[in-house]
């Protein structure tokens, strides 16, 4: 079948990505809905390009690992439209759990944080991709179930690429909300704005790639509120537009922490605990930020004595 030889959907879609970034810039200029900043856009686009180059140079690790697992598959799924659809849906479930882990395990966050490092939320931000994913080793494990079930590696690769293409368009402030039925099932710009927001109520939510139903099923769904507009970026925003520094900053942070670790427990904490974990609890995690915010809200709501 011709579609067994489909090439990477992200490569095919790249010209469309560029046209849509231009269209969004013009729309934002005319409507004022959204924002662009030249240095931020440059950083995002160079990180996107660097990610493709780094993938070519360092991606052999993932390929090798997948080929290592493939001989141990339980079944052999053959190419067909239903198999491709099933593969796409299951790959989206895999993406949900990988993405959730990427926000909750610092070793994976060191890679994924790059995508969140812009204080802007536009289609260029979608292209702000990490360079050193090959070193986020625990991430390799999430593909294992798909391979073991027996989906062909090219089919998984195609589903993953199609998933990433879908996610491109949700990175925009130019689109409000869709009809309820669509927002109920699909990941949308509204849901993903929440995911990129640093407002305490929005932290660590809406991990979906294509189907928001995973967040609804696993208790991580938060809807966007008009009275709490998303503020984008990370809780400690980067102070640079240098793509190399952005790509490296959390890896450097981990290296510094590991160098000062006094026990294996601390090493484990710095690598596998949520971002912000520290042995003495002196740093902020999502939980501590949310708790402080909640207490402040409660205090503000109480009538003055």
């Amino acid at each position, binding site marked *: 079948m011709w579609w067994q030889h489909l090439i990477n959907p992200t490569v095919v879609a790249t010209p469309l990505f560029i046209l849509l970034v231009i269209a969004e*810039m013009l729309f934002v200029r005319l409507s004022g809905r959204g*924002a662009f900043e030249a240095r931020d856009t440059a950083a995002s686009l160079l990180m996107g390009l660097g990610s*493709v180059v780094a993938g070519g140079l360092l991606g052999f690790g993932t390929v090798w690992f997948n080929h290592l697992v493939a001989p141990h598959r339980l079944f052999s799924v053959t190419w067909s439209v239903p198999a491709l659809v099933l593969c796409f849906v299951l790959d989206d479930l895999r993406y949900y759990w990988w993405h959730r882990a990427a926000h909750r395990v610092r070793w994976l966050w060191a890679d994924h944080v790059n995508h969140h490092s812009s204080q802007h939320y536009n289609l260029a931000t979608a292209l702000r991709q990490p360079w050193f994913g090959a070193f986020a080793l625990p991430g390799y494990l999430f593909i294992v179930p798909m391979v073991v079930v027996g989906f062909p590696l090219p089919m998984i690769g195609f589903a993953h690429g199609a998933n990433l293409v879908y996610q491109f368009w949700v990175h925009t402030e130019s689109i409000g909300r869709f009809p309820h039925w669509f927002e109920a099932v699909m990941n949308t710009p509204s849901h993903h704005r929440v995911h990129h927001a640093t407002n305490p109520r929005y932290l660590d939510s809406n991990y979906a790639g294509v189907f928001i139903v995973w967040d609804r099923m696993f208790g991580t769904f938060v809807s966007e509120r008009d009275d709490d507009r998303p503020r984008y970026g990370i809780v400690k925003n980067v102070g640079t537009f240098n793509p190399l520094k952005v790509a490296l900053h959390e890896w450097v942070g981990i290296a510094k922490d590991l160098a000062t670790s006094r026990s294996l427990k601390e090493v484990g904490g710095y690598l596998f605990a949520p971002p912000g974990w520290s042995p003495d609890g002196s740093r902020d995690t999502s939980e501590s930020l949310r708790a402080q915010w909640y207490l402040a809200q409660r205090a503000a709501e109480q009538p003055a004595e």
Partner: protein
Amino acid sequence: MTGQTLYVIGSLVGVMMLVGLNALLFGTENARIATVADAVKRLRQEIADFYAADATLDITKRAALLQNARNGVLYLVVVKGNGLVTRALKKGALKTFAREGTTLSLRLADFTLPRAKLTFADEAIAEAWEARLKHALA
């Protein structure tokens, strides 16, 4: 020249064109912190229990120093592009600082924000913040 090299060069040209269009449509001016209240507002958004005891904007309106009334912690707010970046100036985060007249130069233990420079309207203000920074490092 290989196809891959051409791909990278072509992509770089494409990036430059998109960034150029971005600059043409939206300009390249750095934002300013219009009033000290904007810096306070930003920290209030990021730190639930932040209440400013004191806050001073530098004369370029591109940086500010603030102190939290709740716990005395000092904060730096700086403009980056058209956004703001904040840092707590606690021991360990602030490496050294120096004052020269009305200007305070800070060195931070921060990979993406290693330095900051603030110039205040008069020397007394710079001295007052210098004293607080000394206390923070003590």
